[in-house]
């Protein structure tokens, strides 16, 4: 006889016979069975139904099914093996290619090492060759076209190009002094240009010793100059250092530096010092001068920053030539 239970109870009963209930649910089912005989009867029917189905004898697959499956496995294995062989061949080829590349690289490295050891040497190693750096040969064109000639022209190895610009209120007297000085100096060559009134330009070629003599003579009339500016020309056109308020000893100091770079560096130092001196209050300077404290205001000679020792002025055998242009201007 069939009767209906609530779906929840049916599920509980099925879970009970299948062993899928928790302990609490199992207790609940047991209480339901004890309380309701119909539920107990339904549980028995469900269990019989389950047993009937599970009692069906298992069926064995036909032999052709098993053989067919084995055939599928064999064909698949052959396919996989073929793929593996192809992959293996590619892998082997790649390994051979890499090995060949490595061998070629090693052979090249070995050949380079052998050539380095046994090959011809092109030149001596430069590691310890302390060659002197040559002085720059390019020099600016002189402002005048006078060319040094005669015996006074030394065997020139270096030329120092200078311009000395002098301004004076006694142009006539100063110009006459310079003319006479140059005429009485056989150790130098000069050329004079007096194209403009109140202005003379002298182009002088001499040695550094000759320059010392020339500057010493000029020092006698230095007080007549309202301004004196020495321009030390650099290597390139437009490259120069102007030393304003230059003093005679500064000119000789600059010219007597051994190298072009030293001359330029010293000119810069003098330019800075002279500028600073110009900025000092004039009364203070005069006060110092009047009280004979001249040592206090004497600007010390700049010290060379390099380790080189100062070189004394060279004689006529000096290989360094001086190209000095003196411009004298008179005030109007």
């Amino acid at each position, binding site marked *: 006889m069939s009767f209906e239970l609530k779906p929840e109870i049916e599920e509980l009963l099925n879970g009970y016979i299948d062993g899928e209930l928790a302990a609490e649910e199992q207790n609940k089912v047991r209480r339901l069975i004890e309380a309701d005989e119909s539920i107990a009867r339904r549980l028995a029917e469900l269990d019989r139904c389950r047993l009937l189905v599970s*009692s069906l004898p298992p069926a064995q697959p036909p032999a052709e099914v098993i053989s067919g499956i084995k055939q599928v496995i*064999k064909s698949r294995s052959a396919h996989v093996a073929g793929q593996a062989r192809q992959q293996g061949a590619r892998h082997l080829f790649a390994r051979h290619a890499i090995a060949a590349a490595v061998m070629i690289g090693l052979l090249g490295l070995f050949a380079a090492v052998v050539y380095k050891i046994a090959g011809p040497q092109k030149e001596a190693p430069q590691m310890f060759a302390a060659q002197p750096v040559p002085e720059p040969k390019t020099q600016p064109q002189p402002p005048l076209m006078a060319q040094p000639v005669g015996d006074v022209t030394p065997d020139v190895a270096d030329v120092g190009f200078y311009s000395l610009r002098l301004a004076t209120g006694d142009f006539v007297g100063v110009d006459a002094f310079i003319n006479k000085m140059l005429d009485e100096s056989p150790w130098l060559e000069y050329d004079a240009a007096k194209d403009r009134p109140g202005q003379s330009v002298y182009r002088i070629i001499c040695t550094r010793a000759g320059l010392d003599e020339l500057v010493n003579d000029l020092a006698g009339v230095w007080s007549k100059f309202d301004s004196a500016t020495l321009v030390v020309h650099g290597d390139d056109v437009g490259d120069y250092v102007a030393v304003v308020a230059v003093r005679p000893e500064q000119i000789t100091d600059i010219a007597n530096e051994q190298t072009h770079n030293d001359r330029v560096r010293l000119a810069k130092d003098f330019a800075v010092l002279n500028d600073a001196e110009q900025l000092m209050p004039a009364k203070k300077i005069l006060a110092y001068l009047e009280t004979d404290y001249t040592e206090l205001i004497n600007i010390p000679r700049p010290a060379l920053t390099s380790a080189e020792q100062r070189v004394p002025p060279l004689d006529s055998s000096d290989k360094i030539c001086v190209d000095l242009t003196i411009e004298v201007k008179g005030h109007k």
Partner: protein
Amino acid sequence: MAQHHINAEDAILLEKWRTGDDAAIERLVAKYQGRIYNVILKICANPDDAAELTQDTFVKIIEHIDTFESRSRFYTWAFRIAVNLTLNYCKRKATVGFSSMDAAADDQGTQTMAALLTDEKSPDPAQVAQNRELCSLIQLAVSRLDEDYRTVIVLRDIEGMDYAQIADVIGVELGTVKSRLSRARAALRQILEAL
């Protein structure tokens, strides 16, 4: 514990097969071919079709073994393939009747079935298995269930899966398995009473 052992053994066999050991897959086939064939046969109710579907199932397993994720269970994965193939087959052959099985439902079988259902004693499985007519009736009753009911009945009462495994194989929630199995047994009991 036994289930874990089975899973561990399956995983080892799969790993061996992936490394080229053909004997491993043959062991897996030998282990599951009978159970898969039995489930398929109980669902589709045709020995020839069951044989073909069993072979198709293993072909599919072999072809898609690379997509199998080890975190799943090979056991439920293999049965999922088998059940899906079988249910798809059943849908294609929906018009196919069970005349051969209906013929087995004679009066004697009906009387036996009614007696079994009303008998207060539990049926003896050995006696049931030896009674071919009774087996045919039970198989007939199962085959008359809807496909969804038939599937859960077969997976639970024939294959012996627990509810969680059934849910995994047919791809439904655990609660759905409980309710579906409850309704399937109620329907089966009605069919058996009617035979």
